[in-house]
């Protein structure tokens, strides 16, 4: 799972180009609204019907800041990879520190990506 500024999808080939991959937001104060941004998720080894849930949580105490849930999706080929490019709108962030994007498939935890929110230093 990667966080980036934008994802460009080539129309004919469906290839994805991730632009501006990052793991830290630099903000002047909190609370602060971050984004918009994109989350790119690529998974394999799934078969059947799934509801995916993406949570943005505060790392230290698991406070949920935002949550996204898909409708049910059917994946047929376990050996193929599938991609989820997800555009995220601006989200209000309550405090500085570590955050985590957690991905669940049918409420089963399958992975995470850590992102940090730091104060802008200097002028």
């Amino acid at each position: 799972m990667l966080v980036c500024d934008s994802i460009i999808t080539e129309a004919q080939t469906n290839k994805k180009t991730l632009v501006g991959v990052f793991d830290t937001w630099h903000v002047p104060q909190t609370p602060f609204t971050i984004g918009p941004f994109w989350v790119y998720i690529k998974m394999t080894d799934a078969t059947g019907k799934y509801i995916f849930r993406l949570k943005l949580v505060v790392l230290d105490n698991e406070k949920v800041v935002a949550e996204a849930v898909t409708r049910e999706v059917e994946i047929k080929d376990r050996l193929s990879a599938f991609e989820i490019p997800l555009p995220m709108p601006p989200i209000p962030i309550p405090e500085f520190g570590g955050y985590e994007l957690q991905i669940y498939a049918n409420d089963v935890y399958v992975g995470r990506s850590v992102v940090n929110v730091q104060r802008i230093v200097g002028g």
Partner: protein
Amino acid sequence: MTTTIDDIQVSPAGQQFPRPIQEGQQHVYLHAGPFLFELQAVSHTAAANLEIQGAPASLLLGNVSDPRLRVRVPIPVRIVREGNTFVASFDAVDEFGYGQNRSEALEDLAKSIAALYFSLAAQNERLGEDLKSVRSRLDQYLERRLSR
């Protein structure tokens, strides 16, 4: 309030820039792929309630972060906090993981489970009855991953 798909501006590059979500507000997006996401901002009040209630003490683990292994059945994990350390445990095989937060503890546990699986597999012929039982329980949850 729900934003319908028609309300969202889509750029020629396919990017979507909805207005910022506010507490309790829901948006619905349609992607180029087959996934339709409904996004909700959790209010700070709701977040405070979560803190009072505490994060879930158990969850189901679907990934042991070892490319050689596949989780067949989600692994039930208990998570407790002991001082500044989080402890994740898989009681069926008596394995533990430790970390400074829940996710670190989960990752440590996942590595321990994978290491145990391969350790028992390597010594399969010499296992006593207790360890054969542990191996059997692990086999209910894990299997070697297929490859093309």
